[in-house]
């Protein structure tokens, strides 16, 4: 390393602050320019990567009447076509957890879904090459059954939902019969779809506010079998290798697209033919079926008639039978009555005979009974006789026994007397014993006499008894004979009775038999009568039935005839319809017609536009920083330069030293700046846009565009080198001798201000220094003013942008839009239905100012401009409507006249179409995918109104009817209701259940989605504020640094003079503060322009940014600039403090 280079390295090391200042401003300039320029391309690269990774279609063939299955291979065979994925889809209004969306339901091959895999959130692998628009599952799982769906994982606003919630289809853009088999889907997953990359607006539809807000992918079997494939997604061979949206890509795909465009007519015709054929076949089948059915019906009628006639005949038969039966019964009865009277006569005779017989028998019996009675009267005697006789016999026996005993006693007594007389005889007469024997003999004598009496009595008693017994026995015999006589009589009587009874029983039996016979005959007759009666009832009923049968038959007949007529009419109509089928419209759409893809490109191009202009300010400041810094460096080294010059170094060599110094600094800065900001800026901005677009981030590091990098680095380094050259050349022109001397300090000069004597006198010396200094170093003044102005302008742009963005919502909702609820009814809704909905709304949720309007999604264009979607509103009553929408001029804030003959467009729309009041424009109806139809209707604009969100046409009804022949259906209700969510839920639910009501929408949902969308642009504010701060620091640091270094001596002198620290700060910083103030003031002016440029460039479709920067933003930007300055000053105080008086004053520099 030679001394020259050594000295260069040393000078870098010793003046690191200066080196860093140059490097930093170049880093900021190059980085900002390069980074911002690369952001747009990076966003497009990320998109291309996503589209390739998910096999996004290159061409979409859309048919208004679908495709025949046979057309798919035909399409696939077109040259350049790589794969074709047919899909069924339809647009519907759906409801998820109470919020209503316009959504597109599309079929997706679920087999392919299951087998696909995605690991990096961008590339989806599948064996199925014809699986296009591949989905990336975010949450949940893929649908695998009927009635399951995945919906967008990216929708920015709306009611939260969970897996398992229901998506209810409310109604479709077409009659859903024959389209969808399922109208309630379970959300089983959420997914990202490259064909719907914009999460805010997913495309145009005829439903809702005209844009698709949600998509649902379902398996094909959720659609009716008969519903054809409505769109064919096509990938073009080799297109994935090209950059999506590039000219090469467009040209490559364009070739295939042209093929399809030239093929579209034949496709349409063959589709028409096959549709007609299909319909004709169906109709013919129907006709055949009709004929069969007709024959059947007629046959059935005939059968029925026959049946009825049969029934009538049967009834007649029945009647005859009944009459016969009745006659029989009647004769049966007369026979019965004869039998009965005969029987009665017979009975009488028999009874008489029997009674006579009976009387005889009874007479006999009575006689017997009398005899018996006589007998019976003696019976007790007779009966007691045996006993009595036995008693008598006993008595006799006893008496006999007594007699014998008495006779025995006589013998004994005679023996005793003999003995005693013998004994007495022997005994002397004077012996005592004699007296005794004599007494005994007297006793015995006496007893002999008693016993003799007894024997007498007994003998007499026996005789008597024997007589009694004999008499008794005779009586008994007599009695018994009488009894026998009676008994015989009785036996004879009994026989008589028996005979009688036999005869009577026989007679009775005979009679009973006869009676039984009669009564059974009678029963038979009764039964027969009942039978007959029943039959009669049957017949009566049968008659009735027959009558109603005949009536029914007549009705049926009439009905059948009518049906036949109707069917024939229907068939004829169907035939007419088939004959009338129009050629289907086939649209060949490439990616530029995909809303998401195209708006992403448009947004990225907006950044390109900003990037081309915006960083200019940094380059300008970089040039000035380099110029002042290098000038200062050259000045500081003037005697070194002189020395080199004196030593014989060439000018070029010496200049080279500074060029190399500046070159190294700027290259280092450019490399660092580009390396950092080419990542940070695209990353940050892409992240911001990720809120709107679901395109996955490009993995870091972001792609580096070398061409842009070199351009930006070259600009940065080039500007620095030029400035350095300019600074060095001025000094090098001086002679070495002059260079060796200290440069004469730049002389003080009087400034203009001093000419104003009275004013100047009141200015303190330090202010004088300040003022003079400001004008002494013009380069520095310029650098500082421009740098600070840039900083303030950036801040103002940032905050202004923030204002503009949030003004969209703040100025739209409230100042312009006063309604918050819109209830749409069917266009065909009846007056009653509308009134009912209106009445309910008026009664609920504090709804006020309800008014009816006609609303429709239409297209407008003006000369030289393409059609734009517009929401048309024709109020039924402009005065009422004025309470809900403030139609005013933005600049004057004056209300516009709005009556039935007015035609008002919103400002952004009018600006885009280049329309002024009094110009005319064309209003078109649109088809389902948002193409203008027909020649349109011409209207003359009467007013342009302030409006920020959406493109609207407010047209008075007279103006509308006089310029168009379209029908007016005042079937949309605008109103203002409560903010209370529960009340609203009730309102929505109730309205939903009402006939004719299609949707109920609240502004809040719109506001929410805009808030989300706009917050992405808000990220740019952060970028701007950060870069403004960086710019301010670099400029101020550099300025202050130079200022202090250059004035070390002066500052040291002041210190020596006894200036306090504070006074020294004030002395130096006053100048910077003043410059900051001037710069900030300029910056505010510059910022207004910059902000409006960025605003207009960054503005997205359908949205007009607020056009005012708020006062607070001016204040904030100004104050922030001053704060940055204050911060730098705070930082620089140390440098001031460290100035050493002794060192500084030692010698001349």
């Amino acid at each position: 390393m030679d001394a020259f280079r050594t000295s260069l390295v040393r000078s870098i090391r010793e003046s690191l602050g200066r080196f860093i200042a140059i490097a930093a401003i170049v880093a900021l300039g190059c980085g900002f320019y390069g980074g911002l320029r690369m952001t747009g391309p990076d966003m497009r690269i990320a998109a291309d990567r996503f589209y390739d990774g998910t096999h996004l279609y290159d061409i979409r063939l859309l048919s208004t009447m679908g495709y025949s299955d046979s057309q798919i291979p035909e399409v696939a065979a077109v040259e350049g076509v790589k794969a074709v994925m047919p899909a069924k889809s339809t647009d519907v209004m759906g409801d998820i957890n109470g919020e209503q969306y316009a959504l597109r339901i599309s079929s997706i091959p679920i087999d392919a879904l299951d087998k696909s895999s995605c690991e990096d959130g961008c590339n989806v692998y599948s064996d199925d090459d014809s699986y296009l628009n591949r989905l990336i599952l975010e949450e949940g799982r893929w649908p695998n059954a009927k009635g399951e769906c995945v919906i967008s994982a990216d929708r920015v606003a709306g009611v939260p939902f969970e897996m398992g919630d229901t998506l209810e289809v409310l109604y479709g853009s077409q009659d859903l019969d024959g389209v969808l088999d399922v109208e309630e889907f379970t959300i089983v997953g959420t997914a990202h779809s490259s064909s719907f990359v914009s999460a805010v607006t997913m495309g145009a539809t005829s439903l809702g506010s005209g844009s698709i807000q949600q998509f649902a992918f379902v398996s094909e079997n959720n659609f009716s079998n008969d519903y054809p494939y409505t769109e064919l997604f096509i990938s073009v061979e080799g297109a994935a290798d090209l950059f999506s949206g590039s000219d090469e890509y467009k040209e490559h795909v364009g070739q295939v697209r042209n093929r399809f465009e030239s093929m579209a007519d034949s496709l349409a015709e063959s589709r028409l033919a096959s549709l007609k054929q299909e319909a004709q076949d169906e109709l013919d089948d129907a006709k055949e079926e009709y004929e069969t059915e007709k024959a059947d019906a007629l046959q059935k009628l005939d059968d029925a008639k026959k049946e009825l006639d049969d029934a009538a005949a049967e009834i007649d038969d029945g009647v005859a039978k009944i009459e016969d039966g009745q006659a029989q019964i009647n004769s049966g009865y007369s026979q019965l009555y004869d039998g009965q009277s005969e029987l009665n006569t017979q009975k009488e005779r028999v009874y008489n005979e029997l009674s006579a017989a009976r009387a005889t028998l009874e007479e006999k019996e009575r006689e017997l009974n009398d005899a018996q009675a006589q007998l019976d009267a003696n019976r007790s005697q007779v009966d007691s006789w045996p006993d009595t006789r036995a008693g008598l016999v006993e008595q006799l026996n006893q008496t006999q026994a007594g007699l014998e005993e008495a006779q025995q006693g006589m013998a004994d007594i005679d023996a005793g007397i003999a003995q005693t007389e013998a004994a007495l005889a022997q005994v002397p007469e004077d012996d005592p014993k004699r007296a005794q024997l004599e007494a005994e003999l007297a006793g015995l004598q006496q007893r002999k006499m008693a016993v003799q009496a007894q024997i007498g009595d007994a003998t007499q008693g026996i005789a008597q008894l024997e007589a009694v017994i004999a008499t008794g026995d005779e009586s008994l015999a007599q009695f018994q004979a009488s009894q026998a006589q009676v008994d015989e009589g009785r036996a004879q009587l009994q026989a008589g009775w028996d005979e009688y009874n036999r005869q009577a029983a026989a007679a009775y039996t005979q009679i009973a038999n006869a009676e039984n016979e009669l009564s059974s005959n009678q029963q038979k007759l009764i039964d027969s009568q009942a039978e007959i009666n029943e039959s009669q009832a049957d017949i009566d009923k049968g008659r009735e039935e027959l009558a109603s049968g005949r009536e029914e038959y007549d009705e049926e007949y009439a009905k059948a005839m009518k049906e036949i007529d109707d069917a024939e009419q229907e068939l004829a109509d169907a035939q007419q319809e088939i004959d009338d089928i129009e050629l289907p419209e086939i649209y060949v759409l490439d990616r530029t017609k995909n809303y998401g893809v195209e708006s992403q490109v448009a947004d990225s191009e907006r950044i390109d536009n900003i990037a081309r202009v915006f960083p200019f300010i940094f380059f300008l400041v970089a040039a000035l920083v380099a110029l002042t810094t290098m000038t200062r460096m050259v000045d500081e080294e003037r005697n070194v330069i002189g020395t080199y010059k004196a030593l014989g170094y060439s000018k070029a060599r010496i200049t080279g030293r500074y060029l190399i110094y500046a070159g190294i600094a700027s290259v280092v800065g450019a490399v660092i700046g580009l390396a950092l900001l080419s990542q940070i800026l695209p990353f940050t901005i892409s992240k911001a846009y990720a809120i709107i677009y679901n395109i996955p981030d490009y993995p870091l590091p972001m792609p580096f565009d070398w061409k842009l990098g070199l351009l930006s680095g070259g600009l940065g380094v080039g500007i620095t080198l030029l400035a350095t050259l300019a600074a060095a050349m001025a000094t090098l022109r001086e002679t070495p001798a002059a260079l060796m001397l200290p440069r004469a300090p730049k002389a003080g000069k009087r400034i203009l201000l001093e000419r104003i004597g009275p004013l100047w006198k009141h200015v303190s010396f330090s202010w004088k220094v300040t003022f003079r200094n400001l004008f002494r170093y013009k380069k520095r003044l310029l650098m500082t003013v421009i740098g600070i102005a840039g900083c303030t302008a950036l801040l103002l742009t940032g905050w202004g942008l923030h204002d503009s963005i949030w003004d969209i919502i703040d100025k739209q909702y409230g100042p312009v839009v006063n309604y918050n609820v819109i209830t749409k009814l069917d266009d065909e809704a009846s007056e009653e239905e509308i009134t009912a909905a209106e009445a309910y709304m008026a009664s609920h949720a504090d709804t006020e100012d309800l008014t009816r309007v006609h609303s429709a999604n239409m297209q407008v264009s003006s000369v030289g401009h393409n059609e734009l979607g517009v929401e048309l509103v024709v109020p039924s009553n402009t005065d009422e409507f004025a309470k809900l929408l403030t139609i005013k001029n933005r600049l004057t804030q004056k209300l516009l006249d709005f009556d039935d003959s007015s035609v008002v467009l919103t400002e952004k729309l009018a600006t885009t179409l280049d329309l002024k009041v009094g110009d005319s424009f064309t209003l078109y109806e649109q088809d389902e995918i948002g193409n203008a139809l027909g020649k349109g209707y011409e209207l003359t604009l009467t007013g342009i109104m302030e409006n920020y969100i959406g493109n609207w046409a407010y047209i008075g009804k007279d103006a509308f009817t006089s310029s168009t022949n379209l029908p007016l259906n005042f079937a949309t209700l605008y109103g203002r209701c409560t903010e209370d969510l529960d009340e609203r839920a009730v309102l929505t639910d109730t309205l939903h259940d009402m006939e004719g009501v299609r949707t109920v929408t609240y502004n809040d949902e719109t506001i929410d989605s805009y808030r989300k969308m706009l917050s992405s642009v808000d990220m740019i504010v952060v970028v701007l504020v950060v870069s403004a701060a960086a710019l301010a620091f670099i400029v101020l640091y550099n300025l202050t640094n130079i200022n202090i270094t250059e004035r070390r001596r002066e500052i040291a002198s002041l210190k020596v003079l006894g200036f306090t620290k504070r006074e020294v700060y004030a002395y130096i910083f006053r100048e910077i503060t003043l410059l900051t103030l001037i710069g900030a003031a300029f910056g505010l002016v510059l910022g207004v322009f910059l902000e409006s440029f960025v605003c207009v460039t960054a503005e997205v479709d359908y949205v007009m940014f607020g056009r005012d920067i708020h006062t607070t933003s001016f204040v904030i930007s100004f104050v922030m600039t001053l704060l940055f300055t204050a911060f730098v000053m705070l930082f620089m105080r140390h440098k001031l403090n460290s100035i050493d008086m002794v060192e500084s004053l030692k010698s001349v520099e």
Partner: protein
Amino acid sequence: MSFVEFKDVRKVYTMGEVEVAAVDGMNFSLEQGEFVVVVGPSGAGKTTVLNILGGIDTATSGTILLDGSEISSYSEQELTQYRRADIGFVFQFYNLVQNLTALENVELASQICENPMDPLDALEAVGLGERSNNFPGQLSGGEQQRVAIARALAKNPKLLLCDEPTGALDYQTGKAILRLLQNSCKETGRTVVLITHNQAFTSIADRVIHIREGRASSVETNAHPVSAETIEW
């Protein structure tokens, strides 16, 4: 007690590992109203002494007293105040603020002290009343040095410290400046300390302090100083 006293004052600079004593045990004193010349060869430490006395540098050790106040113990703020009120400095290279006129340069000083001279009077005193509205760049070296002296005097300092005030001037101008300083001392009784390497100046001083290798090698008083006009070098 003397007006100014230096007692064992040392000033040591540390350069890497080497300690160099610029002032190494300085002892001297001087009285109010004296015209003092500090003389010595280059590098003897005289400027350091002046700087320490003027409060723009501090001693490593030792005591400095001025009019009874111990300057060596002053804090930074007190030193600032001290410079502001008590000291007037005149440098070899004038150190005027280029962006202020002569008058304004004087005002710069007079505005910050309590009882300053009228700035115009100060300029007239140095004979520059006519040039008061000129910028330094429009003045010659001598004139600039006179403005510097006027600026120093305008503060009415207790001490006027001059560091080689004639070093950048030609002979005649240098003499005129010396005379101006001498007059200002004699006429207003202000104490003036002048540093020079020029031995010729010693004859005009009331007191001469010889400095050698950081010490006062000798201090002599001159009972009959001559006028500056009479000396030659």
